Structure formats: structure tokens, C-alpha cells
């Protein structure tokens, strides 16, 4: 998708949110484009729901502005925004039947009665609840309630639909089905969806673009493929799918070749922009990692086979490095398995490995990690905050 010439439908500029003196959101800048399915993905407490609530208007940012279209809506109350929300708890009105629930927004807009009936019925049809109009929410299953909540939002023809973990309460099977249904609905109606979830698989399945959030910042934003294949931070690499993450330092630079020394071995690889003695992370997916009895060019990294787990389509092997770190390797079940305890040489596909420069934050993580192994020096939290200039 090329966005450069399009105007964003939502623009967050420097959005910051303070709760009880701590920043839940830090300077969020985000452009969302018309017709796109954007997912805010991250662990609980990362600020994704707060971001959504700020777009909906339920929270106002402590600093920064929110634009919907060309209009600055930072101080506009939610009932005056052309945005609708699907809540995690569905939030269906228990004293109204399904029809009245769905019609609620249209009644507020004073749409003529005949038109309301037509639009509500059409929408109920679309979410496959044609004959459920007279039911009360408490007579419906979770999946059905979810459809009502979606219909109630979509019937208003919003410019923007916000979904706050809408499938969180459903069981696995229904969830997978609803993921596809939602995606198809979005493509059919062409409405911009902003979707909040902590489930990375859900995000990968549905989204045009994913914004991975952690600790109140957007760590990376891009397509599912970009984020999976080229994670830009250690957090993204660890949060999306499985990754082997190895700490190393730059010990030699020769034109494009770099020598990276980890605690357990040495790796030669190509790359630019490195500085001598710099700390880096090497991140590589288990499916791109392998082991061999023979030595492999550019790798001097040895470990011991600890475990094979057969999961049907593949075998998951764990190899332990001398310092105890476990590297995960996924390979085809047809491949001959080496017995447990065999010493092997590790290697990976250079093209598919990502080498990340450590930021200030990750450096503190390193220090913290080291200190955590020394309970006698347990001052890590304060230390980290103090160093950040709190």
C-alpha cells in the first residue's frame, strides 16, 4: 500500500497521556489512512487501549492533538465525533432488544423511522442475525452479542470503526471464524478499522498495518510481513512470533564485514553503520536457524542438543549454549534428528537475521538483567528510572 499521496483520516501528533504522574503514552505520532485495517498490538498496559480511547474521545490527551479528517477533535466530546466503537464487553443496552440496540445511533441522529427500519434490518442481515431483532441481549450467546455490537456501530456509516479487543471473550474456534468475518466485512464496506489486540496471531491475520506498542510508545509500524521479517527492536522481535535473540559486541569491522562476539562464540556477517565495541542484538527466527555436526563458515557458535519436540508439521529443537541460553530451531520432521546431548555447530540464514543496534533503553535492560542475577545489588528499578532522567 502506498500512502504518501493520501491524506490521513486520523492523525495523532505528539499525543501524551499522564495518569498519576506516570506517562502511559509518550509522544505518539500516528497517521491512519482511509480504508485501512490498522492494528494496535502490544502487551497489556502498553497504552494501546488508551490510544484507542483518545481517538474515540473517552479520554483526552494530556498533550498533543488528534485530527479526524482535517478537523482537530482534541477537545470534541465522543458524541460529536464521526467514530463508532465496538467494546470488549460488547456494552449492549440490556433493557433494549437487538433491533433497538442497533437503531440507537440512528434514532439519535433523527433518521426517519422507515429508513431506520430498513438500515437496521439490512445490517442485521449482514451480520447474520436476521430474525433476532426482538431478542434481548441476555438471550444471546457471546458470538451473537459481538455481532450485534458490530452491527450497532456499523449501521451509523462511521468514517472510522474502533474495535477494542472485540474477540477477547470468545472461544478459540469462534474467534478464528470472527477474525475472517471481520476482515471480509471491512473489505466489503471499505471502512477504516482501528483494532486493538494483544494477540499477535490475530494481528498478523487481519491487519493491513500493525503498530506494535510497548511502554507507551510505538516500537514499530508496518505490514505484517515487514514486522515479522524485519523487526526493528528487540521487543518487536520477541513479541511477534518466536525469536532467538543473542547479545553480542562488535569486535572487528572490515569494510562490509563485521565480526560479532557473543559470550558463546563469534559470528561474521555483513552490515553497515556499526561502530567498534558497540553492543548489538542478533535476532533470528527458529525456522531460519539450524545446526550441523560440521563447522559452518562464518559461525563459531557451539551448543548441545537438549530436546526435540514433534508438533506434527515440524520439529522444535532446543539447543543449549554454554552459558545456558536456549536457542530454538524449527525444522522439517523428515530431517534426521541428532541424539540428545550431541555437541553441534549452530548457524543461521544471514539474509534472514536482523542485527539491531542497542538503544539506551535496551542497554539498561542489559544492566538490569545482569543485576537481577545479583540479588545483593537489587536496585535495578530505581537505577533505570534515575538514568532516564525522571
Amino acid at each position: 500500500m502506498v500512502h504518501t499521496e493520501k491524506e490521513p483520516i486520523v492523525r495523532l501528533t505528539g499525543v501524551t497521556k499522564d495518569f498519576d504522574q506516570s506517562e502511559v503514552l509518550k509522544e505518539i505520532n500516528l497517521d491512519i489512512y482511509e480504508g485501512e485495517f490498522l492494528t494496535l498490538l502490544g502487551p497489556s498496559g502498553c497504552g494501546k487501549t488508551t490510544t484507542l480511547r483518545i481517538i474515540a474521545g473517552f479520554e483526552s490527551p494530556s498533550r498533543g492533538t488528534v485530527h479526524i479528517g482535517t478537523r482537530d477533535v482534541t477537545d470534541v466530546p465522543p458524541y460529536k465525533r464521526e467514530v463508532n466503537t465496538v467494546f470488549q464487553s460488547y456494552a449492549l443496552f440490556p433493557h433494549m432488544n437487538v433491533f433497538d440496540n442497533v437503531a440507537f445511533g440512528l434514532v439519535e441522529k433523527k433518521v426517519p423511522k422507515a429508513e431506520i427500519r430498513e438500515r437496521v434490518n439490512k445490517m442485521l442481515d449482514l451480520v447474520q442475525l436476521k430474525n433476532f431483532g426482538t431478542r434481548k441481549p441476555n438471550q444471546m450467546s457471546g458470538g451473537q452479542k459481538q455481532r450485534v455490537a458490530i452491527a450497532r456501530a456499523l449501521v451509523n456509516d462511521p468514517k472510522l470503526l474502533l474495535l477494542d479487543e472485540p474477540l477477547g471473550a470468545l472461544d478459540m474456534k469462534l474467534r478464528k471464524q470472527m477474525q475472517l468475518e471481520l476482515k471480509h466485512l471491512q473489505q466489503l464496506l471499505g471502512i477504516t478499522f482501528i483494532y486493538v489486540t494483544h494477540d499477535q496471531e490475530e494481528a498478523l491475520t487481519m491487519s493491513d498495518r500493525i503498530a506494535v506498542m510497548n511502554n507507551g510508545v510505538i516500537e514499530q509500524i508496518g505490514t505484517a510481513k515487514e514486522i515479522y521479517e524485519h523487526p526493528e527492536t528487540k521487543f518487536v522481535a520477541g513479541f511477534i512470533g518466536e525469536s532467538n535473540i543473542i547479545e553480542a559486541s562488535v569486535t572487528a569491522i572490515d569494510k562490509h564485514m563485521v565480526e560479532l562476539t557473543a559470550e558463546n562464540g563469534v559470528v561474521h556477517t555483513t552490515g553497515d553503520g556499526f561502530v567498534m565495541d558497540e553492543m548489538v542484538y542478533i535476532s533470528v527466527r527458529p525456522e531460519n536457524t539450524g545446526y550441523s555436526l560440521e563447522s559452518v563458515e562464518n559461525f563459531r557458535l557451539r551448543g548441545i542438543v537438549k530436546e526435540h519436540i514433534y508438533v506434527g508439521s515440524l520439529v522444535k529443537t532446543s539447543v543449549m549454549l554454554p552459558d545456558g541460553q536456549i536457542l530454538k530451531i524449527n525444522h522439517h520432521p523428515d530431517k534426521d534428528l541428532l541424539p540428545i546431548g550431541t555437541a553441534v555447530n549452530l548457524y543461521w540464514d544471514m539474509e534472514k537475521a536482523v542485527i539491531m543496534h542497542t538503544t539506551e533503553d535496551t542497554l539498561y535492560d542489559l544492566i538490569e538483567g545482569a543485576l537481577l542475577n545479583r540479588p545483593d545489588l537489587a536496585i535495578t528499578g530505581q537505577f533505570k528510572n534515575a538514568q532516564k532522567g525522571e
Partner: protein
Amino acid sequence: MANTQKHSSDRRMVLTFVGPLALWLILFLAFPMIYVILISFMHKGLYGGIEWKFTMENYAGLLDPAYIKVIWKSVILAFNTSVICLLIAYPFSFIISKIDKRYRGICILLIMLPFWINELIRLNGWSNILRDSGILNTLLIRLGIITSPITMMYTDGATLFGMVYAFFPFMVLPLNNSISKMDHNLIEAAYDLGASRLHTFLRIILPLTLPGIFAGTIQVFIPSLGAFYIADVMGGGNSTLLGNLIKDQFLTARNWPSGAAFSVILILFTLIVLKIYSKIGNLDDLAS
């Protein structure tokens, strides 16, 4: 065969659990009630006792315009008490439902706390504050805001104030129950769908808290209809209510049959209110 055995053991279970309760209700509710209804149709004895001869006189006596006025006044006062309690308790309960859960219990406790002290003592306390030479008037005169005391005690207003004060918690508890039970997301959902604050209140919040409003109103209306001590302390001799009439008939006039007739009227009012309530509300909300 096994079936009948099971039935008989079921019956024994029911008797074990329900029996004591039924006995209690018969001894302390049904018998006194029947007795009151019975004597309301009897003649008054010469020296205050009961002469067991049937008469409708006691009920005919109720039609005296002076009595009808008192009954009407009691109903109006009970109604006003309920409305004022509701108007104060509703926003109050809303605020409580919004504060942190940890402090919510403390707030409810603070409302209940004064009610662990005898009500008469508290009402006399108010009398000390509000009477002509009381704390409030003295303070206002000393501050030069007024020159002569404002008469606050021994008026109908004072009785109403005392009633609202006494029955306020009975309004707060069911209201608080029904307001804090309401999912706050529903309010956000209404805003989200374009409903203004007023519409959100009228279309969502009000209908969902209606059970609490009904339950609270009933719980204030019924006791205020019968309360006599509040009118005694706060209204002095100036306000006589249904409750005072009953008390006077029994204790002062020693006319038990007449007092019993007034009591039957009070019970009828209560039953009518409960009947209306069971039509529009849910009786279970009263119990909670």
C-alpha cells in the same frame, strides 16, 4: 414405592426449614394482624378495654374531615420525603459509584454510622441546633446576619427535614446498589453512538436504575407514612400525622378499636403501594 419415600423425605426437609419460619410468621405477624383487624370492628370498653360487640363505628369515625385531612397530609408528607430523598440520593449514589472501590465501602459506612445511634437522640440534637434559641439561630444573630431568630423548629418544614434525614439511607442503599451495578461502558457506548449527556441519561441511565429508584422510594415512603416520633420531636404539637393519630388513640384516648381502625388504613396504604410496585418493579430489589 421409592418415589413416595423420596416425597416424604422431601416433605420432612421442607418442614424442617420452613416450619420454624412459618411458626414465627404466624405467632408474630399473622396473630397480631388478625387481632388488630378484629378489634377494629369492636366497641370501645368503658374503661379503655374492648367490648366484643361488632360495629362499623370506628371506620365511620375515620370519615371525619379532620381525620381525612391528617391522613391526606401524611400521604403528601411521605411523598415529599421520598421525592426529596430521591433527588439528593441519586446524584450522591452516582458520585459514590464513580469513586475508587476501596473508598466506596467507607462512604456507605459513613452514611450508616449515625444510624447506630438512637434516632430520638439524633432528632433531639437537631432540635438543639434548629430551635429559636438554638445553635444556628444564635450563630446567625451573633454574626449579625439576622436580628431576631428564624422559627425553624415545630413547623411542617422541620418534620419534613426530620423525615428526609431519618430515611435518607433507605434511599441511598438500593439506589447505590442499582447504580453501581450498571456497566459504565454503557454510558460510553451511548456517547459513542451520538447520544448527548441528557439523552444518555434519559435513554440509558434512568431506565437501568429504575429498579433502584422504585425500591428506594418504597423503602422511604412506607416508613414515613407511619413514623410518629419524628413529627412529635420536630413538628411539636403543630403537625399530627397518621402515626400520631394511632399512637394517641392507643395511648392517650385509650380507644383501642379506633386506633386499630387507623392501623388497618395504614396497612391498606402500604399494601396498595406494594401492589403498584410489584406491577412496575421487581420485589426482589427490595430485599437486596
